[in-house]
């Protein structure tokens, strides 16, 4: 009898405690690695090591997508696209961890040929074995049911959906509408169709997509950040060199930390706030473990 009662109490209390327990686990889960250094490849590796190394995410024989931001026809110093050195370091680590194939792509805003060239990413990865840098092919988009708050479904890129591991590698920069564009917004590079239309309700729409499509790892390139006139910039006066790399399995936490680099609070960014409210990750800085490397 005694045992039964105990179980009942435990069962009931777990119902009440459910929310608290969830928060407890969430707080434990959010580890954000922040690495600093002028050698951006080495800095990327340091941040990875702080999270347990790439072998934690990539198992031998797996197919990996490394998704940088190649959205604009800008050279790397303008901080509108992901630093090619960071992308290359990640790709190399994936291969070292035994990845069968690493695919790198982005749905660009400017002409894809110019973006792939100007960003330096195509040239940096050229000639690497088992690495594929291909432009988007329309027929590979697949309709995915989201059943979200504003988006019922979305066209997502097949290569991203079919990958065993998806690594999200945005560059931290200013954005006219969402104030900043970070990990959450980088998912737009695998979205098809009329992407402009989701700007009407950007924070909820991004939460809808990111709730279903979840990267295993987010690495934010803050080697240099664009502080104004984003997301394209075009003037070095708007670029600030920080030499930082932020990595986390919790995209919201990584975004939240990156927000501080711009002198803002995570809650200032509607996209981050909404993601947090919808339980996609942690945005409270005091609830995450920040590991400096």
């Amino acid at each position: 009898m005694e045992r039964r009662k105990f179980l009942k109490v435990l069962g009931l209390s777990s119902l009440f405690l459910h929310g608290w327990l969830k928060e407890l686990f969430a707080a434990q889960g959010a580890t954000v690695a922040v690495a600093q250094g002028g050698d951006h490849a080495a800095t990327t590796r340091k941040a990875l090591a702080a999270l347990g190394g790439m072998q934690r995410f990539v198992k031998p024989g797996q197919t990996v997508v490394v998704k940088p931001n190649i959205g604009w026809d800008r050279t790397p110093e303008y901080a509108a696209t992901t630093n090619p050195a960071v992308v290359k370091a990640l790709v190399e680590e994936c291969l070292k961890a035994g990845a069968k194939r690493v695919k790198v792509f982005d749905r660009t805003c400017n002409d894809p040929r110019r973006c792939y060239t100007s960003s330096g990413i195509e040239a940096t990865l050229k000639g690497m074995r088992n690495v594929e840098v291909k432009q988007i092919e329309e027929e590979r988009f697949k309709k995915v049911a989201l059943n979200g708050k504003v988006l019922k479904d979305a066209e997502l890129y097949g290569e991203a959906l079919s990958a065993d591991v998806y690594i999200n590698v945005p560059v931290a920069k200013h954005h006219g509408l969402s104030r900043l564009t970070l990990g959450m917004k980088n998912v737009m590079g695998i979205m098809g169709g009329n992407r402009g239309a989701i700007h009407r309700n950007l924070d909820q729409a991004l939460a809808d997509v990111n709730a279903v499509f979840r990267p295993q790892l987010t690495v934010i390139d803050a080697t240099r950040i664009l502080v104004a006139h984003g997301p394209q910039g075009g003037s070095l006066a708007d670029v600030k060199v920080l030499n930082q790399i932020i990595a986390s399995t919790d995209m919201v936490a990584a975004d939240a930390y990156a927000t501080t680099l711009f002198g803002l609070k995570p809650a200032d960014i509607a996209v981050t706030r909404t993601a947090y409210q919808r339980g996609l990750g942690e945005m409270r800085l005091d609830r995450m473990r920040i590991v400096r490397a």
Partner: protein
Amino acid sequence: MRKTTSARIAQLCFLALFLVLFLMTEYQGSDRIVAAVNGFFRADPLVAASTMLAVKGYVPLLLPGLVVLFLALFLGRFFCGWICPLGTLLDLVTGRIKKAGALPPLTGGAKYWLLFPLLFASLFGVNLAGLLDPIALLLRALTFFFHPLAGDAVRGVWRSLYGVIGERRDLLDPGYRLVRDYLIPFRETLYPLAFFSALLFFLILFLERYETRAWCRRLCPLGTLLGLVARLGPLRRVPEKLCPDCRACREHCPTSFDRELLQSEECILCMECEARCPARRIRFRFGRPRLDFPASAGRRVFLGGILGGVVLAKSFRFRAPEAQAKLLRPPGVRDEEVFLKKCVRCGECMKVCLRSALYPAFLQAGPEALYTPLVIPRLGYCEYNCTLCGQVCPSGAIPDLQPEEKRREVIGKAVFDKNHCLPFAKRTDCIVCEEHCPVPGKAIRSEAVTLTGFDGKPVTVQQPYVVDELCNGCGICENVCPLEGKAAIEVFRVKDRTPLSAPSRDASPPDPYAGVKG
């Protein structure tokens, strides 16, 4: 099969060169284009003559055309028999087409009635020669019809292959990449006038039903111009007439022996007669210049040409004012009149345009502007850092500019339509235009405005506005505007297309990449 002669080899080489250059007229990963098909137009005497007559001045880019015209004085219509890619194509197919005999309306002076009005119209300021220039005709058929068709077919197969074999298609990817990068256009583009361009080309092929090289000898204004010059020159075929004992030249000659006497303004110097003469009597040698005009190109045609030129020049000028608002010219074109005089209507700029922003005009810009390039931002915008159209333009109608100059050239100015624009009309956020505006300081900016939403609750939205001083009219805003159909921001033509002022070099910000290991 015809015997291989030097003329034949030259023809095939030039045709191959033309096609290779055509395929190279495309972005290949570098800001400067290595080679483009524009060389053929720069060496085109008809283009040189008509353009220089129209602008009434010397156009240095077209000097090779003058050189060819000068050479024609000594070498006759060698261009037609040795170089012209359209002529070569005709030679390649003509053997399979049965001949029905010359078409009466085309014999005699028809070609002069075509050439003179075109040249005089140029003199009176309307340059229409490009419409009938054989190389332009061929290039337009390729650019607007055959190449997109090939691209469509290949890409269609590639796409449906994905539906059939899925990811295994990746095995074939290296092969497809070669085809995609070197043989087919980068994206599917449908051009207005594609049908018409193909039709003209097929019409020229159709004329082969009547006689060999019917277009070349009866109509082609370029050939006619060269023929006129050739007739003045000293080059002679000996004997000039058919020999009474043989007359085989009549069979071998593709153009000039429908009468007893060789028509020197129609001889394309293929030298078939020399190669095939059983008695080896025939020689081409220099004699005394004849300095006579063909009878069919007499005073009547000349005067008729002037009259025709006036009619063409004056009756081709109508432009509906309301249509003009959307007549956007490629970057660097500041004056419509000068542009129309220089534009060859070859279609190269449209072929090379990185974002497929350029399309041939039909009648929007007036009949005289048929086939001239227009930017249609809703279909494609002008890429900020791209200068390809100016690089390939044979006559400099679109100037070849450095990227930093080109970025400041004004195509038009963007204007919002607040009745459509979401933050105004629907009180929701959008700002896709600001996001895409490539100007470093942003020519489209936005301000946060708090309004009462339609549900009665206050909403804060970003409302965009245009900074005219920074807008170069590239049209990316109109292109990406997420509204369906009509965009809420549109680029309109402006009269004053003075380039934007250079960005101030504010205390030269330090290069953040300096001293960083790649």
